[in-house]
């Protein structure tokens, strides 16, 4: 790599190996655009607002990234978010202990993730079908146990998680960065991470290399469930109430963040860094269009175009790299 002739190529290939760098360019363009055309975008308070909004989605998207890298998908995330909020709220209200509430949320998410994972791995039904089923079952369960009414939470310390600041930065931002960092380390620096990539890349080779494929598929869904639970804690704390209808279509938002971030929907390729960038892009667009005074329905149009545009760019980039 020290030869001058190879240098250019190596920087390019090194950059493109850090998955998610493809999404940095659109992010930069959007930031520059909004900085020029709005007065309030590039202010500390607005940036913090954007990041706080990005937190819930990006924590969910982090879990989604694991599942998508294995070649699967988790459509149940939005429903699980609501269920975790509700079980957590019940626990906090009945015990007055916020930590117990957080633990119950995590257990709830983990159980659903485990069930999703076990069925996908062992019965081998498509992840799309399994998690679509969970989407309905979990939502129905949530509506049933709450009798379709909202559960308010009164706990001053618990509020801090979603509403508090530390060194002028919202606490949810710390949470999403910590979850992201842990996920990054698992994916890039542990054997489990490599197995998760491997399953999405070539399941037959993975199995013949001596990896217990089923076990690692389950881990990915379990991780997704736990991430959703953490997102639910932030969400519940911010709103101080658990709505049984919360989180509807949030899984699509998470998928959008993952694919904008350059993770292949076919599995095997991608990474957490891209997903976080993807989640931030979506949050900035929402925020920016409000600042620009554009109607909120426009947000949907733009997010849709970004999804198609970002993935198209990625596909074209890969094709060019292949022809080289």
């Amino acid at each position, binding site marked *: *790599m020290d030869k001058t002739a*190879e240098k250019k190529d*190596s920087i390019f*290939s090194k950059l493109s*190996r850090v998955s998610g760098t493809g999404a940095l360019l659109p992010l930069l363009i959007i930031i520059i655009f909004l900085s020029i055309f709005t007065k309030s975008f590039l202010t500390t308070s607005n940036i913090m607002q954007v990041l706080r909004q990005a937190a819930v989605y990006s924590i969910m998207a982090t879990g989604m990234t694991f599942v998508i890298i294995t070649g699967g998908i988790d459509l149940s995330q939005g429903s699980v978010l609501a269920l975790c909020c509700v079980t957590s709220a019940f626990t906090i209200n009945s015990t007055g202990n916020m930590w117990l509430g957080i633990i119950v949320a995590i257990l709830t998410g983990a159980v659903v993730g485990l069930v999703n994972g076990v069925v996908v791995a062992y019965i081998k039904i498509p992840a799309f079908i399994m998690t679509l089923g969970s989407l309905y079952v979990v939502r129905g369960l949530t509506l049933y146990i709450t009798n379709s009414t909202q559960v308010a939470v009164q706990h001053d310390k618990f509020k801090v998680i979603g509403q508090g600041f530390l060194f002028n930065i919202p606490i949810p931002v710390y949470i999403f960065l910590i979850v992201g960092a842990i996920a990054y*380390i698992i994916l890039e*620096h*542990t*054997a489990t991470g*490599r197995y998760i*990539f*491997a399953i999405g*890349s*070539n399941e*037959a*080779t993975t*199995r*013949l*290399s*001596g*990896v*217990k494929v089923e076990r690692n598929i389950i881990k990915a869904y379990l991780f997704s469930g736990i991430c959703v639970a953490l997102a639910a804690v932030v969400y519940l704390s911010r709103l101080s109430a658990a709505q049984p209808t919360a989180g509807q279509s949030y899984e699509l938002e998470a998928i959008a963040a993952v694919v904008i971030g350059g993770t292949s929907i076919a599995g*095997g*390729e991608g990474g957490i860094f891209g997903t976080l960038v993807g989640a931030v892009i979506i949050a900035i667009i929402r925020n920016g269009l409000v600042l620009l005074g554009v109607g909120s329905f426009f947000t949907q149009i733009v997010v849709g175009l970004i999804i198609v545009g970002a993935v198209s760019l990625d596909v074209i980039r890969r094709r060019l790299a292949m022809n080289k």
Partner: protein
Amino acid sequence: MKNQDKPTPIVEFKGICKAFLGVKALDNVSLKINKGEVHCILGENGAGKSTLMKILTGVYTADEGDIFINGNQVDICDIRQAQELNIGTVFQENSLIPHLTVAENIFLTREIKNSIGLMDWNSMNKECIEWGRKLGVNLDPSITVNKLSVAEQQIIEIVKMFSRNPHIVILDEPTSALSDSEIENLFRIVKEMQKQGVTFIYISHRMDEIKTIGNSATVLRDGQYIATIDNIKEIETEKIISYIVGRPLDEQFPGREAEIGEVIFEVKNLSVPKVLDNINLQLRRGEVLGFSGLMGSGRTETAKAIFGALKRSEGSIYMYGEEIDIKGPHDAIKHGISYLPEDRKEEGLFLEKDISWNVVFSSLHKMKRTNLLDMKEEKRVVEKYKTQLDIRTPSIRQVTKYLSGGNQQKVVFAKWLYAETDVYIFDEPTRGIDVGAKSEIYNIINDLVTCGNAVIVISSELPEILGICDRIAVFHEGTIATTLDRTGATQEKIMHYAMGGDISG
């Protein structure tokens, strides 16, 4: 070429050449096929038979050479053109669409329509039955194909082809999935069609079949024309086999001085329903055991069953005299057995991942520092194997998809060498790689056994098997027909047992 006094051949190949990525699959092949005959094309796996047939049916285009049909030169660029020339094919894997009915399959792309453009099912069903009747088979045109047995599907395939009025029919190993009575039925149909003037090109490995159904034959070897057999019923089987295998042993096999020691690995009564029947084998320290046999004879299946990648119904496996429990590949590796699959791209490599990723993948536990992977150790290990196996690449970060076949195979070898197992199973370790890389791979195998490991090599190439193995287990239809010592083994002997010849012969 002794056919000059005969009428114009229905098919004639003249000087056909075809290369894939610089490797010659067919080299100046010429042959003639007479009308109304069943002409067999004989040769080992990789001799060029299928390539030649694919050129005739327009799947491939020849680099050089001409094809004549009834004396007229033709250009066949795609399958449709082959159909227009009335050339029909029944491939090894059938091409029927499973959830369509028999009639829908037979009339696919030529559906009979009524006056307002809708499907005319009545006419199609009637015609179907009529075509079946001509070949002496009873068809139910409205049953979906996936409800039929493999043999029945093959019959449908033949009826489908017959309904297109072919003059020339290619049968590529048509009996590989059939039972004896089904084969009989197939032959009856072939003879029926032959009476009606159809010419057959018949590809098969089974000597007895060739003798039963064939009239004449052409032998190919390593992409070259070897011989024409005018009357296959009169020639001795041994003679045919010598034509098929004929080449001298290459000198490309490096010698070794491995000391053969005690039995370290043993398989007893290994069975997989419908695939393997009571396989027994022993492997000694320092020994290379060859698995020979035709495709589908159970060589790969035995390896996969040992490795835990194929579920066995019976059988026990012993390592150093102790029975080991193998439920999956992870157990096999844990107990010191590795398996290099025959399909490098689908089962051996992560093509989208780089060399380094692939090499360490099976042994990540070895490069853990606490719970995290030690990237420096990874780099050190991979660089070591890159040098040791001479993997030619600018960087260990090169994505394996872009490597040559030989370098790809070395990456898979490195993966298993790093796993440091005691028993290595290599399935077609030199398939699709050039001669230079081949002998490097033979050297790796030699090094392994010299260090006291034991190796099983599965190969379709007889010279390779004879060149590198100490003993050779010859597979036939899911059993080990015999085990030959290197000293007593010849290509002819191996072929004899592989084709189901009896033990006394």
